[in-house]
């Protein structure tokens, strides 16, 4: 078994913490696994979507008659086929799914067709005539906040300020967090650093484009197959948009080829359903990569002012940040999370963050791994680094001195319980990476990051078969090995071998509501539900044994995979295994199952420290990542390989974000790089091995101590790399991506003394 990472474990488990092969593994290495686009249905039609080529335009008319007349075209839908939903939270989604009076960004859906083949559908799109009145547009966050900026929504009044503004603006909402008195704090400081940072919008870049197969019958019942992070969310949103009853729409989650937050909302699913309903036939809709970039949910771009003051002894006296995030054409950028997480790593007396949620003519953002946090951490951790240099303190020591710990009142409100930030910093201090020498033009950067982690509504069902095997039904798509973790936890709890448990992702009709696979919630919340369901099953198993032995159920305990008499008083009976009891379940009261339905609370927050070495080519500005180490608290690593995988994946995405990934809009407001050739995610030869150190500071809110791990890993890299590049280039970098032209320019300006 490969065992690369280091793990500091405290508690003993039999199976949890081992690295078995995942149950869905063979299907995924043989091509058998079915992803979003891999499903077909008899009589299936192919659908395509017509998209606005304009960043901002009034849609004066849409004439679909020539398309409808084309032989082979079975349905065409436009805004007229989508009534505004009653649920207020669905209104923007409805508008985003199909443009109404205005197209709000390049790529906004305007019409869709379903036809007997893709070529016919393509020709049908050409025959749809849309008359646009082009309006002025804005794609930059700072521009969008200017008083004379083109306004996207004439009824948008900034929320969160008193009194409510009378004029429309592109600022949807203002947020504020913090405590103490920052102004006073700054007067106590010996050194104050104040800087402005900018980051470009990036895309989650999952390799599988959105895809679905929809079928709605004339009886109003519907079935939907799609790749999503949450099929219950899809069901509820689609039902709301199409005026269907939730129970009438059954959604099955396909295998999902990556999401990272980008598949936590609906884009094409309601359109496919509407087309299917109209055509009376199954409709398959698959996005092209171009559509994925132009018309799904990239993350925010941002502009952030940071001011931090310290005493000469290294103590931070005050910290303030003003964050401006644009989240595309509708309200809801992750600036709230940015403002909440910005200073979460520090124990601060005086702290204030203000966030502005801004709309622009870009696709509506969707979550991207720890949404909002990496952008904020980039700004804050850069200033922390600069301050450490200024007071001549090691950046790790400086952070340790000010680190949040158990009992710290966080900058966003709550007081922390046991947390692992210090542990990650201590661990990184002594790591060989920290002690390795650097060569010329090389630099080392460190940065910390925080993420809340979520819990939420969860429902699982665990059924014990007559042969003593266990089937676990969960309602969260498996994005990166969660089935394996669930099998491990169920097996651990029941005391049966891992191989005896099979975990499946059930459809929406089979279980109660499960929240989306997001917020790093699955191993925590679904894991907890799994453990509880197993515990419920154990109670029943003990009851059955009691019945067989004819003793009181209280006199039976479950130990080591067996029901046993609780003590000498209970009598002497041969312990019965799960299989023994299951074999006779039919004669002792019927099938044995355990369930858990809960709104999981107590997701432990998690912290990480990243360390990275880079080399900058001073003649071209090119950056090479030489070495990378992730130190992160996992609470408890159920399947360490997949925990390492999360750490490594987050770091790699961070490298892309820091160095080369960006949404590039032209003067015309159109996206210029809607493909993987020019939207540059890291390729294998861009990266070194990414070393991981898993720390385990148990989360008291989970029976095994699990904390979410999926998101924290993308919070520190932007800053860690910026700090490393700044050190290597000898110039502080405040704008992402740190692409070669930008780095070269800074080096040349420094050389020329500009």
């Amino acid at each position, binding site marked *: 078994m490969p065992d690369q990472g280091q793990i500091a474990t405290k508690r003993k488990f039999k199976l949890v913490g081992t690295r078995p092969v995942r149950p869905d593994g063979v299907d995924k290495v043989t091509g058998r696994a079915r992803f979003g686009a891999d499903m077909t249905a008899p009589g299936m039609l192919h659908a395509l979507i017509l998209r606005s080529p304009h960043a901002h335009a009034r849609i004066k008319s849409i004439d679909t008659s020539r398309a409808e007349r*084309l032989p*082979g075209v079975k349905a065409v839908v436009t805004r007229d086929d989508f009534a505004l939903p009653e649920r207020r939270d669905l209104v923007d989604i409805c508008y985003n799914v199909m443009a109404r009076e205005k197209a709000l960004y390049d790529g906004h859906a305007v019409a869709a067709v379903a036809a007997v083949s893709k070529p016919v559908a393509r020709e049908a799109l050409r025959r749809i005539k849309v008359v646009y009145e082009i309006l002025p547009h804005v794609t930059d966050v700072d521009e969008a906040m200017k008083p004379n900026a083109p306004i996207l929504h004439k009824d948008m009044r900034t929320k969160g300020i008193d009194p409510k503004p009378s004029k429309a603006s592109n600022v949807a909402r203002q947020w504020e967090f913090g405590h103490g008195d920052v102004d006073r704090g700054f007067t106590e400081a010996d050194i104050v650093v104040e800087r402005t940072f900018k980051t470009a919008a990036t895309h989650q870049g999952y390799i599988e484009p959105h895809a679905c197969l929809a079928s709605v019958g004339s009886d109003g019942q519907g079935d939907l197959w799609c790749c999503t992070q949450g099929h219950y969310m899809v069901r509820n949103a689609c039902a709301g948009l199409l005026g269907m009853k939730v129970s009438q729409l059954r959604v099955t989650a396909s295998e999902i080829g990556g999401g990272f937050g980008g598949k936590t909302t609906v884009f094409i699913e309601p359109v496919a359903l509407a087309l299917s309903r109209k055509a009376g036939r199954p409709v398959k809709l698959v996005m092209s990569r171009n559509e994925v970039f132009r018309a799904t949910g990239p993350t925010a771009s941002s502009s952030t002012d940071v001011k931090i003051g310290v005493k000469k002894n290294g103590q931070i006296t005050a910290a303030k940040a003003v964050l401006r995030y644009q989240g595309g054409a509708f309200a809801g950028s992750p600036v709230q999370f940015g403002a909440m997480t910005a200073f979460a790593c520090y124990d601060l007396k005086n702290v204030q963050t203000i966030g502005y949620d801004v709309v622009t003519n870009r696709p509506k953002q969707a979550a991207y791994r720890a949404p909002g946090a990496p952008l904020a951490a980039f700004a804050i951790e850069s200033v922390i680094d600069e301050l450490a240099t200024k007071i001549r303190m090691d950046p790790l020591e400086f952070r340790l001195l000010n680190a949040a710990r158990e009992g710290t009142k966080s900058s966003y409100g709550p007081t922390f319980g046991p947390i692992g930030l210090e542990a990650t910093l201590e661990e990184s201090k002594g790591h060989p990476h920290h002690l390795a020498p650097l060569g010329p033009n090389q630099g080392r950067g460190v940065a910390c990051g925080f993420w809340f982690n979520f819990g939420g509504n969860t429902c699982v069902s665990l059924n014990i078969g007559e042969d003593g095997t266990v089937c676990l039904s969960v309602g969260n798509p498996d994005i990166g090995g969660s089935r394996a973790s669930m099998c491990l936890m169920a097996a651990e709890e029941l005391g049966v071998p891992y191989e005896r448990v099979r975990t499946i992702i059930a459809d929406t009709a089979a279980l109660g509501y499960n929240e989306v696979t997001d917020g790093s919630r699955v191993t925590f919340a679904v894991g907890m539900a799994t453990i509880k369901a197993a515990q419920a099953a154990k109670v029943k198993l003990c009851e059955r044994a009691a019945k067989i032995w004819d003793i009181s159920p209280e006199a039976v305990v479950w130990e080591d995979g067996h029901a046993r008499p609780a003590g000498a008083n209970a009598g002497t009976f041969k312990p019965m295994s799960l299989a023994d009891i299951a074999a006779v379940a039919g004669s002792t009261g019927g099938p044995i199952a355990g369930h858990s339905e809960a709104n999981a609370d107590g997701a432990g927050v998690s912290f990480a420290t990243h360390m990275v070495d880079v080399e900058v080519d001073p*003649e*071209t500005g090119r950056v090479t990542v030489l070495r990378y180490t992730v130190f992160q608290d996992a609470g408890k690593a159920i399947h360490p390989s997949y925990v390492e995988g999360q750490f490594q994946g987050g770091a790699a995405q961070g490298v892309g974000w820091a160095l080369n990934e960006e949404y590039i809009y032209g003067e015309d407001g159109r996206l210029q790089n809607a493909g993987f050739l*020019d939207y540059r995610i890291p*390729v294998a030869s*861009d990266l070194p091995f990414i070393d991981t150190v898993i720390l385990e500071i148990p989360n008291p809110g989970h029976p095994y101590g699990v904390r979410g791990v999926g998101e924290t890993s993308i919070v520190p890299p932007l800053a860690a790399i910026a700090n490393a590049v700044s050190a290597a280039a000898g110039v502080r970098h405040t704008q992402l991506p740190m692409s070669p032209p930008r780095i070269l320019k800074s080096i040349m300006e420094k050389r020329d003394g500009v």
Partner: protein
Amino acid sequence: MGVGLGNEMMRYEAPESTKAAVKLLAGSRDRARILAGGTDLLVQMRSGMPEPALVIDIKHIAAMGAIKREAGGFRIGAAVPSAELGEHAGLVKAWPGVVEAAGLIGSTQIQGRATIVGNLCNGSPAADSVPAMMVAGARARIAGPGRRRDLPVEKVVVGPGKTALKRGELIESIFLPKRPARSGDAYLRFIPRTEMDIAAASAGVFLTLDRKGICTDARVAIGAVGPRAILVKPAAKALIGTPLDEAALTQLAAACSAAARPIDDKRGTKEFRTHVVGVLARRAAVIALKRAKGE
């Protein structure tokens, strides 16, 4: 599914001789295209550009599928994929710069298909093999309804996406001449990642030394910094008569930067490309020098 569609559907032909290919090409109206590796053509077809009416696959033409020695040099058939160039020991030894340039095109997968002739005929100013072929003195053999003709590679592309090929003409092969004694070639490009990018600037250098190590002949070409790749005479002149000392290399870089006419776009700024093309030329010259010295 052609029925009822306004557009004429595309036709696919795989002739087995150059003559047959030319006949198809000449006999068709404007919308016929040669298919070599298809790594440009299929991407363009997918991007919603009008589909060609006829696609002529040249990979079944035996003469176009081989690398042959000729007059001390090499004749590379128009259907030979880049990967095969790298597998040809003789070619690697003679023209490492050309082989490396071809080897930079796309990924391993793209390498299995992409041809240097397709790279050339696609007419992109950033095409990697083109500056390398230009400095190597490569000549394209053109077949058409009339007699075959040879054209230096630098004369093939006349502007972005435009070639000097006439109606009914195609390129049958590329000829790389015999490399003189004490000479070497090299090609470098700049991309932000390590792979899978289109050059933001590029430079190819070929040079010959005398017995004392003084440069007697040189050719320098730059790509991705103008509407097409160009030979930079002043850059070559900066090297000739020198041992490629610091002064000569500085002058070479300056000449390349001066000749660059880049635009600002998603792949880089004008300023950046102008500077970097000089850096690349200089670095390529150092490699070519080593090769010429047999190091």
